[in-house]
């Protein structure tokens, strides 16, 4: 019998530390699949954030660097500049990348550093128990916006891909979701494209993926699927915000 779908080699056999139904698992899995498919396992260096993504330290079967909260893009800069021959990516949450790490991601993008960022946007601080993130939706409740995010006090959700895409240097900026098999496949293709651009020294690539946090959204995993479709995507439309010229020609 032929194996049609298998657990990727770039993940360990152990269970992930993520909560049931958490799409950190999905995103990790498809990234690992891309690495397997491109046979990059021995070439890859993965920079993990502080956030639930940190749990990847026990999960990935790759060279790993645990970074300080928000600083993965700086760490990746140091790594990639030292070892241009490696595939380097950061894996970051929305608190990590959109709040404390704002300067680091914007400047790495602006310098056009030749690595890839996978940005897991779940509209919340998952790891610390559900505080408001820069990406929390208007009206969404969190432990620090107990009556729902009020734009008069906390402003509007930040559309980070759009900001990154407005810079000149980044090569590829796109937003995906992983709430349906079809979306998962698109997200996977997006990651693949980003890695391929990096491999040909094409510059900075940025993949935002809409994710969930059943635990802190206070929903069952299945409920989060609809929430993403109906709420999250309104604020954060899927799409490609920037891509290399050649690619555009192809479309």
């Amino acid at each position, binding site marked *: 019998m032929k194996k049609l779908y298998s657990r990727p080699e770039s993940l360990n056999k152990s269970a992930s*530390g*993520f*909560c049931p139904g958490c799409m950190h698992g999905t995103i990790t899995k498809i990234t690992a699949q891309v690495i397997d498919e491109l046979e990059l396992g021995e070439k890859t260096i993965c920079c993990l954030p502080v956030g639930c993504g940190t*749990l990847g330290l026990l999960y990935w079967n790759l060279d790993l660097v645990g970074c300080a909260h928000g600083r993965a893009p700086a760490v990746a800069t140091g790594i990639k500049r030292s070892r241009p021959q490696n595939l380097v990516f950061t894996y970051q949450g929305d608190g990590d990348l959109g709040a404390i790490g704002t300067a680091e991601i914007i400047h790495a993008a602006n310098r056009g550093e030749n690595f890839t960022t996978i940005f897991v946007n779940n509209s919340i601080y998952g790891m610390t128990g559900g505080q408001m993130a820069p990406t929390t939706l208007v009206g969404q409740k969190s432990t620090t916006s107990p009556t729902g995010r009020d734009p008069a006090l906390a402003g509007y959700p930040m559309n980070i891909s759009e900001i990154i895409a407005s810079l000149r240097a980044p090569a590829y900026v796109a937003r995906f979701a992983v709430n349906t098999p079809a979306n998962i496949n698109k997200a996977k293709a997006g990651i693949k494209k980003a890695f391929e651009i990096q491999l040909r020294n094409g510059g900075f690539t940025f993949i935002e993926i809409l994710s969930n946090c059943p635990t802190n959204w206070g929903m069952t995993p299945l409920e989060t699927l609809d929430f993403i479709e109906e709420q999250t995507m309104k604020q954060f439309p899927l799409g490609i915000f920037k891509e290399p010229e050649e690619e555009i020609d192809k479309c």
Partner: protein
Amino acid sequence: MLVSIMIAGFGGQGVMLLGRLIGECAFEENLHVSFLPAYGPEQRGGTANCTVIVSDEEIAAPVAEELDILCAMNQPSFDKFIGKVKAGGTVYINKTLVNADKARERDVEIVEIDADNLAYQLGTVKVANIIMLAAFLATAKILNVDRAREVVLKKLGKKQELLELNRQAFQCGLEQAEKTS
């Protein structure tokens, strides 16, 4: 009097609430009490535990190297902490999930409550902790059970439906305690 109690179980079993409610009850009786939840990197999907110390004097250390009472809601917790129970101490176990055979030879009293199954019969396994709480209150005799019932029901919420469920669970725990003792 100084009683050290540990409650331990899976993350979702409400062990923190159980411990906290013991604390609240002791507080209402003007006793000295400390409730210390253990937390840590293992918490996500792992085990949870907390220490409650009840005393009629000021409590110095809020932790206990030796336990008077252990309440084990699942097997891993039982296995991990049974060794900390003092000779002469008491162990409450959630019989549905815990096999206490290991400890039979030790000088500890074992109170077995089929908490998960009983709770399931009441409608949701979620009230297993309340059943255990009531059983503990009834047998440990540190706190006044009637006053405790009031405190617990007050703390557990205002929704009529929940109230009733919790009341039943509490009652069930008391009855179980009577049966086992």
